């Protein structure tokens, strides 16, 4: 497969800068697959697993928020958080999952609490599923 240049940039710094053969990310409307020679495009990202094929090797990562842009064959991923599967802090995700569940079960939680807990729950689920898929 042909290589294309891929750059992954988060607010914490550059996560990856090199070439890849295939990229699959979850956008707000569903998964998007990118191969070399993709048309110029911009899409906002949702929460989900990103699959990247580097040198024929499949790598997984939890990729949350931000956007994807392809300009002149250069692919740039600008997520809010991006964690490779082997770097995910599973106990932390587990704790976050439990805390969110507690808030959701509690009948006294306010609306904003519930919204925050839902978002936290989804992030924790994404992290857990990505960590287990390596």
């Amino acid at each position: 497969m042909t290589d294309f240049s891929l750059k992954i940039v988060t607010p914490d710094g550059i996560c990856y800068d090199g070439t890849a053969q295939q990229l699959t990310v979850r956008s707000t409307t569903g998964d998007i697959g990118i191969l070399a020679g993709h048309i110029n495009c911009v899409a906002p990202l949702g929460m989900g697993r990103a699959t990247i094929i580097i040198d024929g090797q499949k790598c997984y990562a939890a990729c949350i928020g931000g956007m994807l842009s392809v300009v002149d064959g250069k692919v740039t991923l600008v997520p809010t958080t991006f964690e490779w599967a082997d770097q995910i802090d599973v106990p932390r995700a587990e704790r976050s999952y439990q805390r969110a569940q507690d808030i959701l079960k509690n009948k006294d939680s306010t609306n904003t609490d519930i919204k925050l807990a839902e978002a936290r729950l989804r992030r924790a689920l994404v992290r857990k599923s990505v960590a287990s898929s390596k």
Partner: protein
Amino acid sequence: MAGVSTKEIKNRIRSMESTKQITKAMEMVAASKLRHAQARVTNSRPYFEILYSTITDIVDSNLDFSSPYLMERDVKKSMYIVIAGDRGLAGGYNSNILKKVWSELEGKNAVVLPIGKKAVDFFRSRKMELLTENYAEAAAISIGDCFTIAKQLSKAYCKGEFDEIIIGYTNFVSVLSQTPATLRLLPLLQSAGEKKPSDIVYEPNCAEVFETIVPEYLGGILYGALCESRAAEQAARRTAMDSATQNAEEMIADLSLKFNQARQAAITQEITEIVAGS
């Protein structure tokens, strides 16, 4: 008489020395914090550059939709986000940014979101309308908080609770120079001149991408401004403490000279007395 004055001078030298030790320690702490803050600023810059260039690309090439984020409204109420420090002893850092924002606020109907203890205290004592006082500790704000604030603000902006959003922060130009600045975040500026349609495909469509990316963009800018301000604060504190240490050294040198003179005077006087007595 001379004896009393040498003792007094000695006490002053001792107290200056302990002051010097404190300022020296504070300088070193600030220098080490500055290194971290500086690294964070350089790490996060590419993110904002890409975010910013994508936003301007969309704004410049969009021909067929209007978004509340783009429309200029009559400004009835302004929203000011002000980032200052949590603690003093940082030279002019806090007063520079607060003074700048205060002069801009004059005659405006504004609501303030202060970040950092000094900013909260400043606007509270001046009886400004505050959005929230939850962010009184600038050092504890995470990137997640920035995105929460950004989402809240963009929602309120779309509802029309305020008609412009301005952020006041301190630019970290270099270790020796920090400049306070204000920046208008919303509505977004459209560059003048011909619009040219671009060949970029927006998934699912231009308007939706825009609606999703603007809050992200705000959060990103907010985090960037926070990083800049934190680095600027540490740099300002380092410089201030460095000059305080130097001043203390100067004073100690001065006082030592006086002490030696006084001691010499006492000895001379004693000799004179002995000679005169014999």
